[in-house]
């Protein structure tokens, strides 16, 4: 318990630096801008028809392929400095020891990823506020978008499979869970690559996964079938790509196991690598 508390201290010091970090405000701002743009069609449709929208658009939010690139880029920016060495780190590390300090950075990646997922969700809700009404159900507007016969007025693809397979709250829960885990996976991949290979290596590897997700939506799935989604974790931020073997896609259990094991492996590589090769 004491070790966890020490790790948490290291993570907390990073969070405290967020308040004065322009990077964090830029990421939040860009996320907000793309959210407004992505949801503008839904709001227009809601205004035109007079049907209010529930806050549960989030599970469909990343269905537009370009959003994978936006998300991937922002996540890389968020974690590009992993393992987050700054002048304060010296004072922390001399007290915690190397292992605890780098473990604290891993914990920070997991916590920051959770916060990022939560902020993304909250921003979608805030964007919908002018036309929102709250209920635990999907609501009439989303139902119309799902069965409207086209991809919806906004470019967001409202998947009938997601609508039928999950209740609104379940879908939001899984979307948040996978956005968190994928962000943590990318963050840990960046951290481990920076420690073991060197500066910028993590950004390049994470960038590859971001582009793979975009590629998978077009040429990739046409060339290799839906099976390509099994090796493209960034796609899993859209639970519409986790429909299971019936659609020749990975299911949520596969994705969950892949991400959790990946996070654990990369954190071990990062910790071991840092102990042997200090920054």
């Amino acid at each position, binding site marked *: 318990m004491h070790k966890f508390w*020490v790790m948490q*201290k290291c993570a*907390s*010091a990073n969070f*405290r*630096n967020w*308040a*004065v970090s322009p990077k964090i405000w830029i990421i939040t701002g860009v996320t907000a801008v793309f959210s407004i743009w992505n949801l503008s069609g839904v709001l227009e449709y809601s205004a035109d028809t007079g049907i209010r929208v529930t806050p549960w658009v989030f599970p469909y939010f990343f269905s537009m392929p370009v959003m994978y690139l936006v998300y991937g880029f922002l996540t890389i920016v968020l974690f590009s400095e992993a393992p987050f060495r*700054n*002048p*304060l*780190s*010296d*004072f*922390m*590390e*001399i*007290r*915690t*020891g*190397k*292992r605890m300090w780098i473990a604290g950075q891993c914990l920070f990646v997991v916590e920051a990823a959770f916060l990022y997922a939560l902020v993304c969700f909250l921003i979608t809700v805030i964007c919908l506020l002018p036309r929102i009404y709250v209920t635990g159900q999907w609501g009439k507007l989303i139902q119309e978008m799902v069965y409207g016969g086209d991809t919806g007025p906004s470019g967001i693809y409202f998947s009938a499979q997601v609508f039928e397979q999950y209740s609104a709250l379940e879908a939001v829960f899984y979307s948040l869970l996978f956005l968190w885990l994928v962000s943590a996976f990318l963050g840990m991949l960046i951290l481990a690559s920076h420690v073991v290979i060197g500066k910028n290596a993590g950004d390049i590897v994470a960038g590859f996964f971001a582009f793979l997700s975009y590629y998978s939506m077009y040429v990739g799935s046409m060339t290799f079938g839906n099976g390509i989604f099994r090796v493209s974790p960034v796609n899993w931020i859209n639970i519409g790509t986790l429909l299971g073997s019936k659609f020749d896609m990975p299911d949520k259990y596969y994705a969950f196991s892949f991400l959790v094991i990946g996070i654990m492996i990369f954190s071990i590589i990062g910790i071991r690598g840092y*102990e*042997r*090769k*200090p920054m």
Partner: protein
Amino acid sequence: MIEIQNVTKSFQKKTVLENISGSFEKGKIHGIIGRNGSGKTVLLKCICGFLAVDTGTIFVDGRKVSHACPQDIGIILESPGFVENMSGFRNLKMLASIRNRIGKEEIREVMEKVGLDADEKKAVRKYSLGMRQRLAIAQAIMESPKLILLDEPMNGLDKSGVAEIRKILLDLKENGITILLASHYAEDIDLLCDTVWEMDNGKMVCDKRNEECNI
């Protein structure tokens, strides 16, 4: 206290420390001088375990410095950094909570000792260079470590600040604490140090001004 045996450290093709050896006795102030880039900071980083040596061994208090930082050590390396939007007191409190050896009162005392007001609510980002340096010295000494590594600790301090810090360092020495002091200021070295080492071209040699170096 510190035993350095045939240590070499290179960065890519540049050898910064070349087969250096020496020992620093307990309870003394040891000065390390040398021009910029001569390897003073690298040596201090190797001693505290932030940098792994390529060859050779460093022992601190009989324990080999390898993949872990030595315990009970206080440092100032290069430009000291803090959480910018927190006060000096809160920064020290956060750092002290890791080892959990001292409480608020001890932090107040050490801040007063280095000439800072513990009740000052001002965020560290509004501190002058001298105040930041005083805060860095406070964090290095607050838990009364057995070994203190100081890289240019007088940077940014005014005349009275320098005098106060010199007195603090001499008091610490009186209490049996070992201090390694890397400094450009010849006066600091002359007034404070029991032994003086000079770094030049990756070599560490005992300075002419003393006869106590153990090579």
